[in-house]
Each structure stands twice: as structure tokens, then as C-alpha cells.
């Protein structure tokens, strides 16, 4: 099962690069949604025998990350009737290079961290780190609010990937809390985006520079 899990993690990492390279918002949102679904499947591979809680987590993840949030984002996009270009402040090629470099660095860094025998050889840690880096690149390198939200989501996904290492050990409360917080957080982000659109009739955060020294 470890190999298939690694396959999925690799897929998620690939989706990271895709997100970095996608030049249009719908594509970006789609990539994020796909990644959410991929992440949601993973718990089943980790848990050999079926467990309700794990199933619940997985389902929640798939629904939340895969469908609800992307839907919200699309809605915000439509409501703001914004053009679909991503408008990077760090170009696509540099972002891709950064992402790729980040991925390699993540793999290298992950070697330095000791793993439990059952996690040995799993790609979860490098995957998590790579996603977090990708998230940062998107947050820093994209000027539109929605693309930043996507970056934030990928960041969260990375952390979620890492959380999978603990899914068996840590009590459910943490997981549930996390899931809830993520959804709520992004939900509020969506609302904010909505409000910003009303206030500024654009989602370009470069315009949000009134407050300064």
C-alpha cells in the first residue's frame, strides 16, 4: 500500500507544479480541487482495515477540499466578474523553477528527519514540505486574491499531508478541529473576497495598499 500511497503523493506533488504553472484561475481552482480529492483518498490507503472515523475524515476532506471550497471560489470569481488571467508577480517559469527546486530541496530535507519504520520510504514528508513551499510561492507570487486563496489551500494541503502521518496516533479531536477550521477559514476567506469585490470591484490585492507607513 505504501507504493500506491507514494503514487498519490507524487500525483499531489505534480499537481503542485501544475498549480504553479496554470495561467488561468479556473484551471488553478481545478488543480486545487483535484489535489483535495487526492488527499481525501489517502486515509483509506493508510488504514488497512475500514474505520468509521477515518472514513469520516476522508469523506469530509474530499467534500470540503474537493468540492465545497472550489465551488465557493468559483462563485466569488463569478460574482466579481473578474477576467481569468492569474497575473503573476513572479513569472510562471520562475515559479515553476522555484517549485521544482523546492520539491528537490524538500526531498533532501526530509532525509535529515528521522522517520518511524512504518513510515520509512514514504513520500509524505517531502510531499508535505513541497506543498507548503508551493503554497508560499503562490501566496507571494500571485497578485489576485483568489489565486492567493488557492496558494493558501495548497499550504494547508501540505500540512494535511503531514498530518496523515499522525492520523492513527492523534485523537480524532485534532483532526476534526483541523478540518472544521480549514473549512471555516476558507469560508471566511471567501466571504472576505466577496466583500472586497464589493468594496473594490476587483480582486487585485495590489490595489490593497492604502494602509502603509
Amino acid at each position: 500500500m505504501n507504493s500506491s500511497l507514494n503514487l498519490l503523493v507524487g500525483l499531489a506533488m505534480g499537481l503542485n507544479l501544475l498549480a504553479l504553472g496554470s495561467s488561468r484561475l479556473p484551471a488553478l481552482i481545478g488543480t486545487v480541487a483535484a489535489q483535495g480529492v487526492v488527499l481525501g483518498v489517502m486515509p483509506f490507503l493508510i488504514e488497512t482495515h475500514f474505520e468509521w472515523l477515518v472514513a469520516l475524515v476522508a469523506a469530509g476532506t474530499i467534500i470540503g477540499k474537493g468540492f465545497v471550497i472550489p465551488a465557493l471560489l468559483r462563485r466569488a470569481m463569478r460574482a466579481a466578474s473578474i477576467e481569468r488571467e492569474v497575473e503573476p508577480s513572479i513569472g510562471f517559469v520562475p515559479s515553476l523553477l522555484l517549485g521544482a527546486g523546492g520539491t528537490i530541496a524538500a526531498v533532501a530535507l526530509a532525509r535529515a528527519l528521522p522517520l518511524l519504520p512504518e513510515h520509512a520510504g514514504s513520500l509524505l514528508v517531502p510531499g508535505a514540505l513541497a506543498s507548503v513551499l508551493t503554497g508560499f510561492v503562490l501566496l507571494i507570487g500571485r497578485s489576485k486574491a483568489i489565486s492567493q486563496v488557492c496558494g493558501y489551500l495548497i499550504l494547508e494541503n501540505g500540512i494535511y499531508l503531514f498530518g496523515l502521518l499522525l492520523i492513527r496516533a492523534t485523537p480524532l479531536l485534532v483532526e476534526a478541529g483541523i478540518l472544521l477550521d480549514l473549512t471555516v477559514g476558507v469560508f471566511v476567506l471567501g466571504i472576505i473576497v466577496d466583500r472586497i469585490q464589493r468594496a473594490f470591484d476587483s480582486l487585485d490585492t495590489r490595489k490593497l495598499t492604502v494602509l502603509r507607513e
Partner: protein
Amino acid sequence: MTCGPLLLVAALAFAAGIVLGPARPRTWLALTLAGAAAALLAAGLILGGGGEWDWRGGLPLGGERPHLRLDGLSALFVTLLAVVSAAGAVYSREYWSDQHHPDSAPRGRRWWSALTLSMGAVLLSSNGLHFLIAWELFTVSAFFLITLDREHVETRKAGWLYLAASHAGTLCLFAFFASLAARTGSWELGPMRGHAGFAPLFWLALAGFGVKAGLFPLHVWLPSAHANAPSHVSAMLSGVALKLGVYGLVRFSGWLPVPPSAGWVVIGLGATGALFGIAFALAQNDLKRLLAYCSVENIGVILIGLGAALLARNADDAVGAAWGRLALAGALLHVWNHGLFKSLLFLGAGSVLHATGTRELSRLGGLWRAMPWTAGLFALGTLAVAGLPPLNGFVSEWLVYLGLFDAVTSHAAAAWAAAPAAIALATAGALALASFTKAGAMVFLGAPRTQAAEHAHECGPWMRAPMLALAAACATLGLAPLLVWPAIARAAGVWQPAWGLAAAPSPLSSLGLAPVVLAALAAAAVAGLWRCAHARGLRRGPTWDCGYAGPTARMQYTGGSFGATAAGWFAWLLRPERRAHRLRGFFPAEASLAERVPETVLERAIAPAGDAILRLSTAVRRLQHGRLQAYIAYLAVGLAALGALVLLGGNS
């Protein structure tokens, strides 16, 4: 003994003054006088009867049980505080009266009481924490007194400069007391000469107290603050507030061990301060600024004495003890003397300001006719500050001289510091004579230079009485220094136990009646010459001036040209700025010459540094430009930096 109740009465009186002051001027004045009298009595008991009063409170304040101690040294300063505070309070009744300053006069009374109370607390408290509290309260209340009149931008600027400089000093004291407490394990203060390890702390104390004392390179706040404050406040600041800085230095150099080089540094600072301070004074055109710079000089004199005493203490032999004691006694006596005559001079300047509305020498002149009392008393203060016999300034400077000379004649290593210090002291004395001849003459002699000066009026009894009292004190200390010797000796004994016991030094006792005789002879001669002149027939006529027909007031010698000669020798330090508009052509239009002596240290050294820091701040503030992406980038950078620090920092 009965010190406790007296001090309690004083404290209660001033505390009540804080509460009642704004509403009830008369009650406030009575309270202040009563409190001052009680404090004076308590200090007198200590100085006269010896011993010390030591009291530990029950309930803790700020986590520490109060510990008050009134010994000879603090009593010396308490005396000065009480006298000047009372004098200023009486003076302010007319000078800063309610009808002229309806809103600020009540505030002024409140802060005056607060200032006196906190200063007293500084002098008494023997616990580092409480010392700091009292110190900061004293600083802040002095700030509010300086800026009583918040209308003028000048005053506000001066106030802020004072506050900023004092805070820098206070933070040095934070470090001083905190590291002292860290070493002793408690905030308690007291004699701890044994621990040689504490010596380096002296430098912190020197910086912290030096700012407040107006030590030469740290004096930058002093001139503007003293010049722009109300005059009774200037008197308090210059007469007492500076002395608290001195108190700190004397107190802690007495309680703690000092590094071997301390004496050399202090005496060097004192000598340069005395010389440069008075050089600045000579160049001033603002009467109160002149007085303020003169305070820098006198602090220098005091520090020369203290430095010599420190050198003697380190030399640690019988000979050294002898001259060290003389120098220390001179310094301590000069604390009193400067407090008295400088307050007198500031009050005099105040009544000039009150009468004419200006402090500029070039707008005054001929005031003696309108205000004879002020003129006479100011002249007396002038004699005293110039250190001329038979007044008090001479006695203390003379003691310091004796200490320095003995150090030189005893061929001690300290001679290498003492001889230059003596020369500097003499030069400063001559410069002081020049500056105050200038000050007195430009203000009171000759013809009035402006309408304002012409229509001046004498100050009323409320302003005259305190000046008279202070003048009387100056004269007494000058004529009969032996009276106060025991007090001085006791204070010196607190600083260095071995030095206190001895009787009055032979010179002082043998000086004995000389001042009195001199004063008597001078009086007799004046009277004789006066009567003789009248007997021969005394005619009034215009100033002959080599027969010049139409002299006008504007033809008189000005303060600027008066200072020019000697101040010119210090041009490298004073950097006077002159804007001359010379006469040109056959039918010249009007010409003008404007001269200004900047506060060199402030404008040439500190201001540029401040600008550099402000530029840095502007550069840093540009980073807060409002772009969210960059903010998240900062976050990532912080993450990376901390990661590097933690993961690569290794385990130390």
C-alpha cells in the same frame, strides 16, 4: 531621635501641597514653608548632632519595604533643597501669579510640591527600586514645571529635549541599579566598598547621574531648559536639580568601590567642564542661558574637588587623606554655595524678565535706577559667582585649590591631574569674572537700550524677600565659613569615614576673620570715599566720553563685543555663526550683523547622529508598504532565518 516626626511633617506638608496647591495659594505657601522648615530642622539635627536617621517601613511598596536614611551627606542636600524650594515658592507667588497665569499657576504649585517631595525622596531613599521611582518622578515633575507655559514652541522644544536627555540618563540608572541588584541579590543600598567587583558600575553611574548634573559633554539639555523655564523653576533646576546628579555621584562613589581611573576621569571632566562651560557662558547674549552655562562651569568645579578626593582615596595614605579631605570639603561646600548664589542670580534674572519682558542683554541696560534692589542683589550674586572674597564662592573654590595645591606639593602621582586642574580652575575663575562683569553691566549699568528697559519697574516684596534671604545666606557663608565647617566635615565623613572626624583645617580657621575684616574695610572705604566726594562737591553731568557731543544708548558697548575678545580664543569650540550685511557703495543702505553661538555639542555632534538614525528609520518604514505578498515573504524569510538559527546554530 526626632528626625522621623519632622520628616513626616515635611512629607505630609508637601503631599498636602500637591492636593491643595491648585485651589488654595495661601494654604499652599504656608504648607510649603512649613514643610521646608521641618525638613531644614531635621537636616540641621543630623548635621549638627551627628549620627544618622534610619527607618524601615512595614508594608512593602512595589515589592520592597521602604528604607529611608538621612545621614550627613543627604542632610547636606536636603538643607539646600529646603531653602531653595521655600524661596522659589515665595517668589512664584508674585512672579507666576494667578492673575497673570490663570491656568498654569495652579498647575505650577502642584508640580512644585511634587518636585520637592520627589527630590526629598531621592535624597532619603536607600533602596534602589525606590530611588529609581523617586528619581523618575522628580524628572517628570521637573519636565512639567519647565513646560508650565505650553504656549511657546521654544519652551516645548526645550522641555522635550530635557525629557529625552533625562530619560537617557534614567535608563543608564536602570542598568546601574539592576546590575547592582543582580550582583548583591537585593535592591538594598548601603556601604559596600568591600566588593571590588562592583567597581565597573561606576561608569554607568557617571553617565546616568552626569546627564542630570550637566556634566560637560552631557549638558546639551541644560541651557535651553534653564533659559526657557519660569525663573523660579530655573533656580530650582540649577540650584538643586543639578545637585541631585552630583549627589548621586558622591553618594555612590562613597558607597561603592570605584575603578582606579575614576578619579582621573572625573577630575578631567570637571576641568574641561569648568573651562568650556564658562567659555560658552561668556559668549551668550541671553541672560538666563549665560547663567545656565555658568552652572556647567560650577558643576565642573565640584567635580574637580570630587575627582581629587577620589584620587586621594585611591592613593590611600595620610598625606592623601589630608588634601583629599580639603578637596572634598570644597566640593561639598560649593554644592551649597552654587545652589545659593545661582538661585539668587536666577531669581534676579527672573525679576528683570518680569520687569522688561526680555532676557536679551542687547535689549537691557541701565536698570539699576528702576530696580535698585534687584541690581544690588544681583551684583552681590555676581561677586559670589565670580568666586571673589569676601563672599561664599571664594571659600569653597579656595578649599578646592588648597586640595589641589597640597596634592601638587606632596609630589603625589595625582599632581599630574591636580596641577592642570588648578590652572584650569584659575582660568575659569578669570573667565567667570569677565562673564559676570558683562552680565551685570549690560543689564543694570549704562543707559537703557530699549523702551522696555526704560520703563522697567522694581519687583514687589514677594519677589524681593527670597532674593534678600538668599543673598544673606551667601554673605553669611562667605564671612563665617567656620560656622558650617562641622556640617561639611560630617558629610565628608559619610563619604570616607576616616576623613570626617578631624577638626577644621588650619587654613580655614586661620582664614578666620579675614573676610569680615575685608568686608568691613571695603564698607568703610566706600563710605569714606562717598562722603569725601560729596564733601568736595558732586556735580552730575552727561558721560564725558572724551567730549563726544551726542551719545545715544545704542552707542554703548554691547554684550556681544564684550564677550568677543576672550570668547574669540574659544572660537574653535564655540563656532559662532555670524550673518553680516556690510555697508557698501557711496550711499549705503542699512547694515546688520547677527551673531549666534550654537550649542556645539548638540548641533554638531548629537543632531547629525539623530538624523542618521531617523534616515535609517525612514528606510525601514518603507518596508511597511502595504503589499500583502511582500508581508508573507517577510514571514517566510523570518521562518528561514529562525530555522537557520536553530538548526544550524548548534547546541550551546
